[in-house]
């Protein structure tokens, strides 16, 4: 199976990445892109800073992809997660999955995102317009709850 798992400061080009999944026998590619949302409940987000645990991040993403591979007949998977300082509207994460038929690709992409959200060691700090100090984003209970449907 084709795999590309990256943690990077650099931006990614969705079209360029998805072309890598146009492999033999692939009939379905599902991709998810996460962006820096401008609107937070407490103001306008100008940027975020993404911290991670370098020694663990790559390993944890690889483990999630292996789990997806064991559940669905996948032909390819790409996970790119950015770190560092990202302005509003910038791309944060790409998850793309290729399989012969659509159901496996839809489900595996959702599975990888749900596990990434609750298990991969990334932390967001938000900067709000008019506030000098950034603040750490709190984890949502709904993210942890999303894992229950895969058990």
């Amino acid at each position: 199976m084709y795999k590309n798992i990256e943690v990077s400061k650099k931006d990614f080009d969705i079209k360029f990445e998805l072309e890598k999944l146009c492999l033999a026998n692939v009939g379905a590619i599902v991709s998810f892109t996460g962006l820096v949302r401008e609107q937070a409940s407490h103001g306008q987000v100008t940027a975020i800073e993404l911290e991670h645990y370098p020694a663990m991040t790559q390993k944890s993403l690889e483990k999630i992809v292996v789990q997806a591979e064991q559940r669905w007949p996948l032909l390819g998977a790409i996970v790119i997660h950015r770190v560092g300082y990202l302005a509003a509207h910038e791309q944060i994460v790409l998850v793309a999955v290729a399989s012969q038929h659509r159901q496996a690709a839809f489900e595996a992409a959702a599975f990888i995102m749900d596990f990434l959200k609750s298990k991969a060691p990334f932390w967001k700090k938000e900067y709000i317009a008019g506030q000098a100090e950034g603040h750490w984003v709190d984890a949502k209970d709904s993210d942890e709850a999303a894992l229950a449907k895969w058990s």
Partner: protein
Amino acid sequence: MNITLCFFAKFREKLATQHELYTLPSSCEVQELLQQLAQRGGVWQELFDCPKGVLVAINQEMASLDSLISDDDEVAFFPPVTGG
């Protein structure tokens, strides 16, 4: 035995440190180490006396309260993750 503690995100900032070398008399469970760190008081107590607010990884693998810590382990502490 000696272990390395690592702190990330809010933990790194509030404790104003990223790493610490730490000595334990013998192998112990994660919850015992959490208690020891909480006993330092102040911001340590605030962060470590709160089992739901702290995630622990041993040698870059997620651990639980009863996971065993051994010599030379890298034990990382951080808040629930918020990537994606």
